[in-house]
């Protein structure tokens, strides 16, 4: 029983940050048809900036809990500045080109951004433990869980609900849905597609950075740590269905639970179980578990 509860909490905690990151990835793919490897760089930038800001705030005398304000600030700065800059200079010129070529271009972009991190933040790891130390812990399933992890679960739930509401309940969301469904038709109907693309890309970048910023206080933020999250979030969105928001949620949950189970019960399979599931999903349901509806073009 304790074990089950622990797997559940661990799995949810892991799934929640994966969900935030993957949500950004999947929305960008859904609308722009770009599988963005540079998303891993947004994640890394978010984490670095957040860790840096927490350190700064802390020396300025902000309380440990108060430093958490760095998380949204870092995500917004990275998303709005770096995200827009990249959309304007690089991504904009890639629309409509071969999908695989676009992936490669974003891979190139990722490599460049990774090294720029080194130049800006140096090679030393950053620690921003203040928020995790400040949050009170809880006893669950006979072991001590930190409150920070639980807050992450709540936040990702809220973000999931907000995105759902924006897409389904607002005018703007309906425009986006229309483009996902059929972008040519959307153009014909007079939707300003480039502007929607831009907005969605920046929003996706903010989400990627938010995932990184939120995870930053629980890890050592060191060079190269954005590499792993790329393939992991690829796995999440492929499992869930490229471009699908509920798919990202299910994918993240599945990956999170699988990994938690593996670490706690069967450590040997930890690293590949996720990819084995990804391969299986691709084989049996290549569109993913929750592929968004496709327009039938006759």
């Amino acid at each position, binding site marked *: 029983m304790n074990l089950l509860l622990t797997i559940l909490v661990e799995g949810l905690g892991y799934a929640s940050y994966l969900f935030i990151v993957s949500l950004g990835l999947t929305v960008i793919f859904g609308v722009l048809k770009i599988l963005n490897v540079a998303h891993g760089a947004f994640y890394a930038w978010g984490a670095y900036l957040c860790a840096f800001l927490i350190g700064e705030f802390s020396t300025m005398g902000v309380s440990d809990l108060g430093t958490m304000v760095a998380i949204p600030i870092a995500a917004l700065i990275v998303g709005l500045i770096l995200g827009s800059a990249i959309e304007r200079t690089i991504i904009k010129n890639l629309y409509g080109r071969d999908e695989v070529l676009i992936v490669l271009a974003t891979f190139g972009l990722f490599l460049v951004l990774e090294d720029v991190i080194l130049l800006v933040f140096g*090679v030393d790891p950053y*620690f921003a433990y203040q928020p995790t130390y400040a949050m009170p*812990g809880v006893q669950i399933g006979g*072991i001590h869980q930190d409150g920070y992890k639980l807050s992450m679960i709540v936040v990702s739930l809220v973000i999931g609900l907000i995105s759902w509401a924006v897409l389904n309940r607002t005018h703007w969301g309906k425009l986006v849905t229309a483009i996902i469904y059929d972008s040519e038709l959307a153009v014909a109907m007079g939707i300003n597609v480039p502007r929607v693309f831009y907005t969605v890309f920046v929003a996706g970048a903010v989400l990627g950075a938010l995932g990184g910023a939120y995870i930053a206080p629980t*890890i050592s933020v060191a060079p190269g740590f954005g590499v792993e999250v790329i393939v992991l979030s690829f796995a999440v969105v492929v499992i869930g269905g490229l471009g699908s928001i509920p798919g990202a949620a299910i994918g993240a949950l599945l990956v999170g639970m699988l*990994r938690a189970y593996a670490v706690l019960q069967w450590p040997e399979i930890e690293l590949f179980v996720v990819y084995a599931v990804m391969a299986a999903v691709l084989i049996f349901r290549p569109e993913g578990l929750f592929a968004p509806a496709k327009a039938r073009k006759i």
Partner: protein
Amino acid sequence: MTNRTMIGAIGVSVAAALAAAAPALAKDAVSIAVPAFLSGPAAGPFGVPARNGAEMVIDAINAGKLPAPYDSKGFAGATVNVEFVDESGGNTKQVAEYRNLIQKRNVDAVIGYISSGSCAALAPVVEELKTLTVFAVCGTPRVFEDGERQYIFRTMSHATADNVAAAHYIKDMFPAVKSYTGINQNYAWGQDSWRDFELSMKVLMPDAAQSDKVQFPKIFAGQYGSEISALSLDAAELVHSSFWDGDLEGFIFQATPRGLFKQKKVILTVGGTAAYRLGKKMPDGVILGARGPYGILVRDRKTALNEWFIKTYFDRYGTYPSGPAYQYAQAVLATKIAYDKAAAAAGGFPTQDQVIASFKGMEFESFSTTVKLALAGGHQAITENVYGITKWNADDAEPGVTDVKFYPAECVMPPDGVNSVDWITKGMPGAKC
């Protein structure tokens, strides 16, 4: 079609353009390469102090400013030109880079390497390229136990010492421990450390039970939430870990709010580096090693060499020297002594073979301890080992250690010619404790 001429022409011109070989070096200077992690999670806690330690001692050697009896200038009188190179990027990359160091940049000797992975991968290549290489920190016993080495020396004890000493310390200080588990990195260092610890515990504390869910996360994983849960769920009272680099600091930061250090006894065989870097955030009551008598565990050792080392380091870099600083400095010092000894014997600047001959089996007083190259035909050093328990020193606002216990070299390292696993399994015959 122009293909034919073109391919031919390109082949010739590309190759010819690059054919310029590097010029040979004169012998009033010795050029050495010092690899250490200069980027990535291992840079801050390990690479940077290691580099600093080496840099400081090399500068002192070139100026003839080391304390006596090491106050002669240079390596056998020759100025030491040093180049620091990055150790990160994986074993295969290190092998390729090592070839470049020797064949392209023509260095006379390589002193360094932190990761056991680097050393295990490089051992055969060093032997193939026949250049003096002094391993400074890396700990896997496999380097010398997998084959005979001519050109490699290691100037500190290997992982066996850390883990045998760890088991001794547990037995001496916490004889009531009934069960133990571990979390170690999934590569040579972590696997060897756990194996040696587990075997030593079976010999020294046969009644203590071992957990069946020992954790081996990937090196540089950075996130240990689930592993910490697994350890918390485990009934074992003691947790052994040979974590180092940023992984260790990440683990401490993640485990503290989870109450792991309050719930269990934790022994960190390479915890020394974290004590200075984490300061007050380092939990009290953690059993701490530094892979031998280095760093925080020898802060109070009042020898001339040690006092010079701590003071010069503090003045130059603004922090106290941690283990890697001592260990790299020790490797550089050992190389200097070997060169000087060989020069004295040869009556002139020594050849590499002469340096190697005098390096073998050497015994010398290093900055914090006595080093004896006693194993593997005089290529592998042994030193004493030491453990203590962390205690924040509120008066000086400095990290401190209590209950420091030293174990002699012959107690924690196997005798020459004996494989470390065999030695521990047989009950450590011949150990002088």
